[in-house]
């Protein structure tokens, strides 16, 4: 579904990624984990087409790109949730739903709103929502869109445990519907139940650690990222 390979990227001469790789198939939730500043968000942005790689390529839905834009990938089925600014502040939740449906056809609005428990603020402008509510609205849009691939950058940031469960169930629901899902974040214990596999981003490159059990037993991952209580 989505594959990125040989990705390198520098900022002002500082190499953030070198030979990074990411592959995710439909029906799978992949956790892209690693310490701050190791290149997780950079890799996500490159895969989503909001940032160009210095070298390497992204393949989405059978088409390979050296440089690609989010608009191109989104039209083919990708949905990207950045850390911030995914919603238009002047529009209500319902108006966001309308935009998605006008562009991509009718979706199951009741299911999306119901799963994310949005019934009470469908008419609210998104700039009046709390951080957790905003995350739920973003996830509801993804559920309404039914993307073939969802990339979510730090979706559990500033979200309480109950909301994490709602979001996590959303990822599992999308995966069970055949979507490929990639999430990043540091809330590893909250993320773990929803992940099928883990990709560790460290020192600018990536390591596929397999399922969560083998990842949590990986000596280097434990020592360099999870810590003694991981």
């Amino acid at each position, binding site marked *: 579904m989505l594959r990125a390979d040989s990705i390198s990227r520098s900022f002002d001469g500082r190499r953030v990624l070198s030979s990074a790789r990411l592959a995710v198939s439909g029906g799978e939730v992949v956790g892209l984990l690693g310490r701050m500043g190791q290149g997780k968000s950079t890799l996500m942005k490159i895969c989503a*087409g*909001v940032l160009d790689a210095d070298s390497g390529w992204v393949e989405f839905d059978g088409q390979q790109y050296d440089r690609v*834009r*989010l*608009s*191109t990938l*989104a*039209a083919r089925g990708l*949905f*990207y949730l*950045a850390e911030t*600014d*995914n*919603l*238009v*502040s*002047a529009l209500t939740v319902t108006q*966001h739903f309308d*935009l*998605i449906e006008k*562009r991509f056809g009718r979706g199951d609005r009741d299911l999306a709103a119901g799963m994310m428990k949005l019934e009470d603020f469908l008419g609210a402008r998104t700039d009046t929502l709390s951080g957790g509510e905003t995350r739920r609205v973003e996830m509801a*849009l993804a559920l309404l*869109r039914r993307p073939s691939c969802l990339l979510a950058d730090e979706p559990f940031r500033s979200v309480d445990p109950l909301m994490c469960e709602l979001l996590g169930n959303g990822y599992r629901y999308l995966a069970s519907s055949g979507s490929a899902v990639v999430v990043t974040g540091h809330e590893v214990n909250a993320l773990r139940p929803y992940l099928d596999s883990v990709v560790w981003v460290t020192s600018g490159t990536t390591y596929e650690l397999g399922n969560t059990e083998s990842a949590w037993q990986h000596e280097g991952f434990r020592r360099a990222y999870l810590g003694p209580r991981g």
Partner: protein
Amino acid sequence: MLWLALHAFIAAVSGGEIIAFGTKATIVLAIVGAAVGNADTRRRREFGMLGNLGISKLAPPAMWAGTMVVLEISLRVSLYYAGESS
């Protein structure tokens, strides 16, 4: 609105005369319009949603620039025919 405000300002400082821009000034106006469109879309945090809707980042600035050019051409044509009829 920006286009209207600009022409209202010009009319005010030129003693009520409506002036259509020449070709070069229209191009400059279109570039300014595109820059304002880009800044406005960024201010409203619309690029993320637009991207997910499959709409290019270039679309909002292009729409702003295009609107400016169409309005300017319309004004020029209107002034031309108004001059013909008087």
